[in-house]
């Protein structure tokens, strides 16, 4: 699944070649930093998570198998790392999630002529409660399907689907309010 150049790069990383590790890091760091930010919602925590994830990635590189692409393998490690960070600070969220329980009663419908802007949508996504934001971004931005999300989050597939549709309704509501 991966190219010869990539296999070579991986082999060099495994030998502890710092130059090769830097190349690999640069190839994925920006994208993974964005993943961390979307998962955690704070730049400071995203930065720490990125650092810890890559240290972990280099240490575990020998367990990488060509069944998945390197990018997908790296992304899963990063996401799992973010979820661990999340578990550690769960109290803070119990309180916030209570407030987030107020789901809009009706599903807002898009007007025919709704015009979205990336910045507004992005800001609204970052204002979603953490549980909503994670499912929504895993599905729409990171490109996982509900079975995969269920696996990542350790929930049922139906749970992922219903959480996602609530998240989408909330996002719509946030985009409508001014």
């Amino acid at each position, binding site marked *: 699944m991966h190219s010869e150049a990539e296999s070579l790069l991986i082999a060099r990383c*495994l030998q*502890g070649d*710092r130059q090769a*590790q*830097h190349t690999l*890091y*640069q190839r994925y*760091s*920006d*994208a*993974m*930093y*964005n993943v961390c*930010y*979307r998962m955690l919602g*704070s*730049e*400071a*925590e995203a*930065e*720490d998570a*990125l*650092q810890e994830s*890559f*240290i972990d990635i*280099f*240490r*575990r*590189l*020998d367990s990488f198998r060509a069944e998945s692409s390197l990018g997908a393998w790296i992304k899963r490690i990063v996401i799992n790392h973010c979820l661990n960070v999340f578990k*550690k*600070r*769960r*109290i*803070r969220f119990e*309180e916030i999630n209570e407030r987030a329980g107020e789901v809009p009663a009706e599903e807002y419908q*898009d007007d025919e002529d*709704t015009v*979205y802007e*990336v910045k507004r*949508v*992005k800001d609204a996504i970052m204002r979603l409660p953490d549980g909503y934001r994670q499912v929504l971004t895993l599905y*729409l*931005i990171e490109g996982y399907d509900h079975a995969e999300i269920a696996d990542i989050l350790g929930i049922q597939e139906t749970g992922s*689907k219903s959480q996602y549709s609530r998240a*989408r309704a909330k*996002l*719509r509501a946030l*985009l409508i309010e001014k």
Partner: protein
Amino acid sequence: MNEQDPLEAFIRDNRSSFDDLKAPERVWARIDKKDTQRINLWKWSAVAASALLLVAVGYIFGIKAQAQPDIAGWDEYMEAENYYQSRIDNKMKEIRTLPVSEEVMNDIQVLDEVYEQLRKQLMEDPNANTQLLLSAMIRHQQQKLDVMEKILNRVDKYQKSESNNHEM
């Protein structure tokens, strides 16, 4: 799932615009300092395991002597607290290496005092709303972490503009 949903379609069509952040430069520098070799991992895990054993033994024997407040959610709080404190300690080490003014350090000191007050209130006031205080304390720690992060960013930028000025 409705495939025609305009909001979903919009996000998918603009997928690449959502990756607009750049990983801060300093992250690689920190990774570069760490040992990422697997070969050493066994050796270190043995060292870590024996250290952990020592700590665990100390903890088990020490636990009875330690006064632990009888507050719901205390264990979870301590877990979060330890997590943030170690992050804060790391950032503090970094800030100390920078030429920041006394004033900045004093401001950080003030934050510490606020935190101590929250903690004192929790310990001493039997009528305190413990859940509220616990989450306020955790939020405080996170904000502190953010402030420290901002200081580091600011100094970074300042140093860069300084060195640019010298070149001119």
